[in-house]
């Protein structure tokens, strides 16, 4: 593993790792130091915490502060700052905010606390949405009346197309997200790769997976090979997990969604279908929050699209550090800024 990855490219090529977990693994491995100098790696928008816009954080905070509410959230969301504070601040001030490991844990909390209203802060991509959909179906079966979802789910492919079509940043190849692909299969990438003429390799998250994936991607870019390749065959098939997608589509419909940094991307989010509206926390708690504005100087939006590197942000490592984050890219365990800061990239 100590040898340099990939053949030396004859021209500068730019690769994007879409998934935040890949960003973290790459930084932890020190992979950039093993790449030929002509190969540049940039990070993409595949961190569900990082792409949640400010007003959605504020909406969650407003709901968490409602009397009688138990806010259940993945741990990553606890310290993401909204315009005033974070869920961790609300917990420290006496609010009932609980870290859960799955949406089913939140449903269990609702069953154990019939007099309270339990809201699950729903963020994630296609990897997570099917488990939440299954939980909603279970809640309906059990007739749980005090369980709600605050929906902030997004789907990867519209964002991928947004980046693929960008004239601002030319990306030659994509390290595609392994776990999203377990659900979607490799098939949806085929149209993307063919239309935008991009090399695509789906890879897993072990050191060997990432090394092999990046090596193959460099070779494919050099050969202008736009056939989608899977280097995570033990988990990803062309068809993906049809059952998971059926459950997801049973409960959710696509909707326009706002992404931090990318703006509104049509049909890139998931919302509860009308028949499940009673589980929609947005409908149950009609909180008014301001439009949401980015802290001056925060470059999370540009970092998420690969336009800027964390080092380009004047707040990075100074006003914005993991213990006192300004933007979500520093606080998320899949955030680009957190990876760069922690591993000295």
């Amino acid at each position, binding site marked *: 593993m100590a040898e340099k990855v990939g053949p030396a490219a004859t021209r500068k090529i730019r690769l994007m790792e879409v998934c935040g977990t890949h960003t973290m693994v790459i930084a932890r491995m020190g*992979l950039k130091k093993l790449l030929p100098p002509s190969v540049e790696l940039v990070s993409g928008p595949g961190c569900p915490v990082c792409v949640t816009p400010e007003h959605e954080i504020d909406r969650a905070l407003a709901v968490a502060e409602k009397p009688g509410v138990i806010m259940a959230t993945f741990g990553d969301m606890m310290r993401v700052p909204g315009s005033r504070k974070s869920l961790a601040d609300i917990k*420290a001030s006496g609010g009932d905010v609980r870290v859960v490991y799955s949406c089913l844990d939140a449903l269990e909390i609702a069953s154990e606390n019939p007099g309270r209203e339990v809201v699950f802060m729903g963020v994630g991509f296609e*990897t997570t949405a099917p488990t939440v959909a299954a939980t909603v179906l279970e809640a309906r079966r059990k007739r749980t009346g005090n369980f709600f979802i605050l929906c902030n789910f997004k789907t990867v492919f519209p964002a991928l197309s947004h980046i693929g079509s960008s004239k601002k940043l030319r990306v030659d190849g994509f390290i595609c997200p392994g776990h999203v692909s377990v659900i979607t299969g490799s098939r949806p990438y085929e149209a993307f790769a063919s239309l935008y003429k991009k090399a695509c390799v789906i890879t897993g998250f072990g050191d060997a997976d990432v090394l092999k994936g990046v090596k193959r991607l460099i070779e494919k870019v050099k050969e202008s090979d736009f056939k989608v390749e899977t280097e995570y065959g033990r988990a990803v098939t062309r068809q993906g997990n049809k059952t998971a997608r059926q459950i997801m589509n049973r409960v959710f419909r696509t909707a326009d969604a706002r992404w931090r940094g990318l703006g509104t991307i049509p049909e890139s989010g998931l919302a509860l279908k009308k028949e499940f509206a009673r589980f929609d926390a947005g409908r149950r708690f009609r909180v008014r929050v301001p439009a949401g504005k980015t802290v001056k100087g925060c470059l999370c939006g540009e970092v998420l699209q690969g336009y800027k590197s964390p080092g380009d942000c004047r707040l990075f490592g100074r006003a914005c550090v993991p213990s006192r984050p300004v933007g979500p890219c520093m606080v998320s365990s899949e955030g680009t800024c957190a990876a760069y800061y922690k591993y000295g990239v």
Partner: protein
Amino acid sequence: MGDRITLAHGNGGLLTHELVDVMKREFSNRILDELADAAEMKVGKSRLAFSTDSYVIKPLFFPGGDIGKLAVYGTVNDISMKGARPLFLSLGFILEEGLGLDVLKRITRSVGLAAERSGVKIVTGDIKVVEKGAADGVFINTAGIGVIERPGVSISGRARPGDCIVINGTIAEHGMAVLNAREKLGFSSAIKSDCRNLNFVAERCLAVCGSIGCMRDLTRGGLATALNEIAAASNLGIEIDEKSVPVRRDVRALCDVLGFDPLYVANEGKFIAFAGEGDARKVARAMGRPSAVIGRVTRAHRRQVYLRTRAGADRILPALETDQLPRIC
């Protein structure tokens, strides 16, 4: 620092140190300012080591241990890391109203067994009861005193240039075992806490190498945080080879699934010793299998720890700043 205490202040990382700085301003002295896990004091002709720790772990019982066992071994180990023979412990209980007497008996039985195994006596104690909700069942504080008997032993929190770093076994078992139990993650695994007393193995190391200059048990914040603390205290650099750090396959697998780095996960039966290059193998043999030499101390990149990753690249290994959280996807 914000204006409220958060759970992150208790994780043993940088925020905990910020809190310690707040307190040091009120009662600083030469002994305290060493900020060692155990204080070393001269009383008459004797050199004593003194330490205290509080135990608030949840759940109270977990694979491989319980709060009682932890409360004894934790303080015994802190004293041992000074090269001292632990002798006496105090034992303070804060009990939550409603706690079952059978639970308390189980814990105190465990305390007694652990004290016997460590060769220490519980000589004084205290019991308080608080209202329901004010404690998580049981909180325990232990303080311990030991004597540094071996002549010539001088264990500071500081390493020396050229020292090799030896670890006594596999890491990350305690943290992962407790997490799996506490959060009821449902992983069926054989992972148990490594909770054990280290006084006898520490003594064996000093018997073969009296010039060991630094020893540290690895608790919250894991191996990475302990190395950073020592690098900062020594004003020297440390280089670690990731491939040489022993991690059990099942522990690594669970860490991979959850997105945790074993280098930052808590331990309760592991320590590192800093010995000269010629002594490192002797110390490793005294520790027993599966001990390993994992790195060295250098004059380069002072106050920083560098890791040669399994992929072969070198990168910085920082201290724990915020708690590790399971990944979302």
